[in-house]
């Protein structure tokens, strides 16, 4: 990719009289070029992209879900995670194509608004922002569970459950930290992800050997579909939150170096890596205890699994890893949420003020507060499963629409649309991706679906009220 022209015209203005910011002239491997001599540098490499994807995904699913998933679906929860990974892959491939054609900040929102028009874009963009809040809240509640388990491990008896309090504390701390401008958040993320992968690989290798009886204690074989087939699908819908991270890579698409190569590799690569880790983890966890007992351990079941294998040191290692992982997921999601706010206000769907940069720290304090504040309210509910499902719902709508947007763009084939990566098996693969994304929603709890629909309705009404005249669709 040498210099790829951008030919998407925006027009109109919102209630406050703001117009969408000018589109760049072109994108190159290293920059986004505006008006010939103004450039935005791309600074995130492949490793950074993978760290964002893996770092967001690996915390939630691996550390919070095994107990919940096993109690729902038994040993077949491994299949649930497999299904989740497959759907994520079916969406990650089309997303990669769109991202190489439009490597701009905002990810899925940008692709859909330019491919299908402002109304869809607004629903997805605002939905993405809110979805990330639900996801962050879910991660923070998970973090609270892990931190509480630390207290339990230390033998500190507390008269109340500290889960929500700790979640709130960390939520506030993370928001403050990102506003205050910690210098090396990305490097920190890379290191955390590296440590996590090492700890998990060691732990899982031991667990797999143990499950096959290498250490002389073959686990009791269990009926695979012990809860039947339907729970496998509802569990897949529940745990899909574990796979939301690859889309976070697309929210920083404007900052990825050599986007034509690094975006697809980072998105598809991180999905493949975490799918393997998830499936193996659930297998190890369920074969250590059996689904029933695992289910009783709840959100911190992994700690008990580690204790079973490796005693106290194992439990401590997994506790530490769980804290790091949920922390990095929450951190990454808050940052993505603020990127989403930026993309929306750039396009005049939110007030320009929302992406204002703080003079002292250089950070987008309004956007970060707009993400951090509501997250705390959501954390206060303490509803792990509901938070996870609403986050999944809002993301699944976006994923499905991204697949549709790809089909729309390929059919119309506008001149500016020249992705350097093309999805194989068009139109079947993106078609299946769209159907699978929308289809998975059907297996969620009615309450989650209802909340999701209300959120979408509100975002649509906001768009009609605030930015009904804004035109974002590309020339197709």
């Amino acid at each position: 990719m040498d210099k790829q022209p951008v030919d998407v015209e925006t027009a109109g203005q919102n209630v406050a009289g703001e117009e969408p910011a000018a589109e760049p002239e072109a994108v190159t491997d290293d920059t986004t070029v505006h008006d010939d001599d103004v450039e935005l540098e791309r600074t995130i490499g492949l490793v950074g992209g993978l760290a964002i994807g893996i770092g967001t995904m690996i915390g939630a699913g691996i550390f919070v879900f095994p107990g919940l998933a096993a109690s729902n679906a038994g040993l077949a929860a491994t299949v649930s995670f497999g299904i989740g990974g497959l759907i994520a892959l079916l969406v990650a491939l089309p997303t990669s194509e769109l991202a190489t054609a439009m490597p701009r900040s905002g990810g899925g929102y940008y692709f859909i608004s330019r491919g299908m028009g402002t109304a869809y874009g607004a629903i997805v963009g605002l939905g993405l922002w809110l979805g990330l809040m639900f996801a962050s809240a879910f991660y923070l509640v998970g973090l609270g569970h892990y931190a509480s388990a630390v207290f339990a491990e230390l033998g500190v008896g507390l008269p109340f459950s500290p889960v929500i309090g700790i979640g709130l504390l960390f939520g506030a701390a993370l928001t403050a930290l990102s506003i205050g401008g910690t210098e090396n958040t990305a490097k920190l993320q890379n290191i955390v992800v590296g440590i996590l992968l090492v700890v998990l690989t060691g732990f899982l290798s031991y667990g797999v050997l143990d499950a096959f009886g290498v250490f002389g204690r073959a686990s009791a074989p269990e009926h695979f579909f012990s809860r039947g087939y339907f729970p496998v699908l509802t569990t897949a819908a529940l745990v899909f939150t574990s796979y939301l991270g690859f889309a976070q890579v697309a929210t920083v698409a404007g900052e990825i170096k050599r986007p034509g190569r690094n975006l697809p590799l980072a998105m598809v690569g991180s999905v493949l890596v975490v799918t393997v880790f998830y499936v193996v983890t659930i297998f190890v966890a369920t074969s250590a205890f059996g689904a029933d007992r695992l289910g009783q351990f709840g959100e911190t079941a992994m700690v008990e699994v580690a204790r079973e294998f490796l005693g106290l040191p194992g439990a401590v290692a997994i506790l530490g890893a769980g804290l790091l992982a949920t922390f990095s997921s929450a951190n990454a999601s808050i940052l993505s949420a603020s990127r989403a706010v930026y993309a929306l206000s750039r396009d005049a769907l939110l007030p320009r003020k929302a992406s204002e940069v703080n003079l002292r720290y250089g950070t987008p304090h309004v956007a970060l507060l707009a993400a951090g504040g509501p997250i705390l309210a959501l954390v206060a509910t303490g509803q792990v499963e509901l938070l996870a499902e609403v986050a999944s719902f809002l993301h699944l709508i976006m994923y499905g629409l991204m697949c549709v947007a790809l089909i729309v763009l390929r059919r119309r084939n506008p001149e500016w649309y020249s992705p350097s990566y093309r999805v194989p098996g068009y139109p079947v693969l993106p078609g299946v991706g769209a159907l699978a994304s929308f289809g998975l929603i059907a297996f969620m709890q009615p309450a989650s679906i209802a909340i999701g629909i209300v959120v979408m309705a509100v975002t649509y009404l906001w768009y009609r009220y605030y930015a009904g005249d804004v035109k974002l669709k590309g020339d197709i």
Partner: protein
Amino acid sequence: MTDRPSILVPIRVLEGESVPEGVPGLLANAHVVLLGYHVVPEQTAPGQAQMQFEERATARLDEYEAIFEEAGAIVERRLVFTHDGQKTIDRTIHEHDCMAVLVPNATGAVDDVFVAVRGTVGIDRLARVVAGVFGAMDTSITLYHVVETEETDEDIETLLDGVADRLGELGVDESKIETRVERDLRPLEAIVDASEAFDAVVMGETDPSLVTYVFGMPADQVADRFLGPVLVVQHELANERDE
């Protein structure tokens, strides 16, 4: 007149860095690549900073561009919002094929310039920068070399004469060129000490090594301690890229 060497002048345009006094005069004969850049933290999208600060930054660059053009330089400019200033500088050097980077410090009239000659590598670019920038000025040029242990007197003579000849070919008045050789000193300290008496420094870029990784590049250290402008001559482009 020789070819105008392209010299990168990087300026943190929104953080109070400006073109110091005397610098436009210094680069009057150069092809100036004026790079205004603004470093944003990782939690901020560069585009976000652009939305808010582009106008202000552009206005400042307009001013600086005018000052350089008034002094006689040819100016190309860039405004970049980035997470990583060094990456931006490196990329700009690469894209504009800059022969040298200026570490801008205020300066008065430049009467004498200090040129640190390290070894045979990169001599030609060093000569072209010196001749291009200072050749047409009435500046005395001191070629300075710190002897390394395995070098013989002949080696040094060949080296410095070679540079002087090359400068002569490029149109520099050879009577203005002096040479100075020192022994038994650590090159970096020697350069810093010796350069104090001069108005400007020209030196080569050094390959990163473990020492430079810990203490910073020698050119940066010289620039930190020498109060005048430093021109750091860049290596020939290797043309390979990471990631």
